[in-house]
């Protein structure tokens, strides 16, 4: 026990005196978490600039422009005379969409004909496209229904309920667990889980690289030291940072705490087990930075699990971050019970056992 205690103290000292490891294990989790959370903190896209090309110049088209400008999703940044100028603004990133009103818009509306409004939306930026399309389609549909009801009342008196006929289906959509469909609420929990794994993996790799085997007491001491170091970090990431940036918090605090503790232990064992592959202390930095993004993708958060090959998804299960991201999001954001995330918990326990065995085996060899 004395040897383990000494190793804990010596490991903490080594970390404290090595600015590279200190930056990775103490600075990076805090800096990354703050930057990512703050960058995504606005959550939704507002006031996307659009160009308005009105060739009708009629009270009807002006009323439509007022209606569109009334919302917060987009703003009419430019009213231009033709599509050519609007296209220039689109290329110059001054606007991300164009609304085109044809010259005979008012005549067609008043003459019982079918009129049209054309949207040209930039599909090069997905979230902007989505925000614009959803807002403009809603606005134009409500205008369509208004005209349709008026026509039904005026011209088809045989209809008993023109409003219902124009709008027979009330389609109510509710987004669960993330009501404003905020980008930060969607991606930040996964990023925080990944930050914990990657910085710990890098840090332990840097600590232990260059030596194939460590005695069991050395490994135990290093593992305990890193867990002690990461307890306040975990608290900061998942309690303070999550509160500061209003990330979803629907789970039971005790379940979340126990789940994170399990994850922390698995990551430490995973990092201890894989550290023997690094031959010198900089190698983890060289080889591990690149895999953060693939690990995020393979967890099924950024790219849906249903759309990736099942074998690729299965490979992701080797890393603690994959089950942890799924389990944590469901526990914390969706308010799932431990029973409802049993598969992820079982997988983390299996990893705990496997990586624990690898660590003990390589230490016993010594």
């Amino acid at each position, binding site marked *: 026990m004395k040897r383990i205690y000494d190793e804990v103290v010596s490991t903490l000292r080594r970390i404290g005196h090595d600015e590279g490891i200190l930056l*990775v294990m103490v600075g*990076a989790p805090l800096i*990354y978490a703050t930057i*990512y959370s*703050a*960058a995504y903190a606005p959550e939704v*896209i507002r006031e996307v600039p659009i160009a308005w090309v009105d060739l009708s110049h009629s009270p009807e088209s002006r009323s439509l422009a007022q209606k569109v400008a009334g919302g917060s999703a987009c703003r009419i940044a430019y009213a231009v005379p033709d599509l050519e100028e609007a296209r220039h603004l689109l290329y110059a*990133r001054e606007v991300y969409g164009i609304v085109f009103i044809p010259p005979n818009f008012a005549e067609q509306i008043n003459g019982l*004909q*079918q*009129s*049209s*409004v*054309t*949207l040209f*939306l930039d*599909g090069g*930026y*997905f*979230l902007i496209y*989505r925000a614009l399309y959803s807002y403009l389609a809603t606005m*134009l549909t409500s*205008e*369509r229904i208004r*005209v*349709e009801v008026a026509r*039904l009342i005026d011209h088809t008196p045989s209809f008993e*309920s023109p409003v*219902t*006929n124009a709008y*027979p*289906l*009330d*389609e*109510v959509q*509710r*987004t*669960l*667990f993330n009501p404003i469909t905020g980008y930060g609420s*969607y991606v930040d929990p996964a990023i925080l889980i990944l930050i914990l794994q990657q910085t710990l993996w890098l840090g332990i790799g840097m600590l232990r690289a260059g030596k194939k085997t460590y005695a069991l007491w050395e490994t135990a001491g290093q593992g305990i030291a890193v867990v002690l170091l990461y307890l306040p970090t975990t608290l900061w990431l998942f309690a303070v940072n999550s509160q500061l940036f209003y990330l*979803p918090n629907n789970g039971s605090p005790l379940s979340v705490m126990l789940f994170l503790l399990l994850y922390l232990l698995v990551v430490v064992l995973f990092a201890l087990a894989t550290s023997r592959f690094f031959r010198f202390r900089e*190698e983890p*930095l*060289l*080889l591990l*930075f*690149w895999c*953060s*993004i*693939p690990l995020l*993708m393979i967890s*099924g958060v950024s*790219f849906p699990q*249903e*759309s990736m*090959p099942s074998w690729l998804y299965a490979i992701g299960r080797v890393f603690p971050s994959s089950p942890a991201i799924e389990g944590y999001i469901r526990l914390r954001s*969706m*308010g*799932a019970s431990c029973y*409802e995330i049993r598969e992820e918990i079982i997988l983390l326990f299996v990893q705990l056992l496997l990586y624990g065995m690898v660590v003990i085996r390589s230490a016993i060899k010594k």
Partner: protein
Amino acid sequence: MSGYKALLKREIRYLRYDRTSRLLQVWLPLAAMLFFVVLFGDGVIRSISVAVIDEDHTDLSRAFEQELDLSKRLQIEADYTTFVAAERGIREERISAVIVIPDQFAAHLIQGQRATIFTAISGTNLSTEGQVSAVVEEAADAFTSKWQLQRFEENGIQPPATQPTLCPICIRSHTLFNPSLNYGTYLAPVFLPMMLIILTSMATIYAVGRELKYGTSDEWLAGADYRLSKALICKMAPIIVSGMVMVILMIILWHYIMAIPIHGSLFWLLCSSWLLLAAYQSIGVMLVAITGNMRLALSLGGGYAVLAFTFSGMTFPAIAMWQPFRVLSNLFPFTHYMEIVVDQLLRGAPVRYSFSATCSLLSFVLLPWVTIPRLKSILTDPKYRGRL
């Protein structure tokens, strides 16, 4: 020329015999490309599992369910018969959404009242949430049109007379630059260069930093007659050559495997890719010069390269970020490169629109060279050699 040749030979020898260099410059970029090509496949999100709870059990409710089923993007799971069970299914991530067709759905429509369709979608995955939402809206529109036509016919109004009354304002939507809204077309041009800049940064810092770490900086500089620019050019050359080979491979993958059309100037795309890699090389050299410590430079360089993804605006757009972050996003060469990629790959914009982004990239290549005098003093100062 003999000096250049010897220096280049030295770097190529490293590439041949050093496992880490080979991994960084050859195997990891190839692995990353293969990973993303396999991951995105054809880039289409399909078979999202949803539950449909039909509480009405009428021909009309089944007709609505059929409209949903027509979309290949949804996979309707038959195991859920109550909302509570479906909600649990969402929490267990077996399904992504539940669509409820309530009791009296058909009765309300027939009586001329408004019927309701209720959809609850998990918001913890925005890519699937958007798809489900769109499919349900499309199904509701298709169902509404058919129902309205049927009502007109019942009232003795036949097409085409129904057309202007049914749809007085037709909304024509054109998705520019990625008309099929293909997820792969959108993400592949972001992730593949992202991998290349991380690995190029790391390879550069490692190549310069190892001269300090192993105390070989004097030998390296002596081979270049103590002309640092000559030494650096030879050191950077193999990294940028292998990087450009990867860029060409990346563009081939985009175009021939992932079927992403190149609408703009391929030449400009290649030039800006070269500038991007050179910019991250320059920044890597600058970090070694500032820190005089390979490990610290690697930590900072890796962090800087990874953060570029967030600030590129390709996930959460920069125009939606807080003002200081919008300014900060300009401090990453990758942000400017992505503008050029969107312009030249997706938009087919005239080259003049990519000119300012290209100048920004060029400034990232040139500006870090102000730290060259400091790098020279570090490389020649024995106290920095072998420093951990």
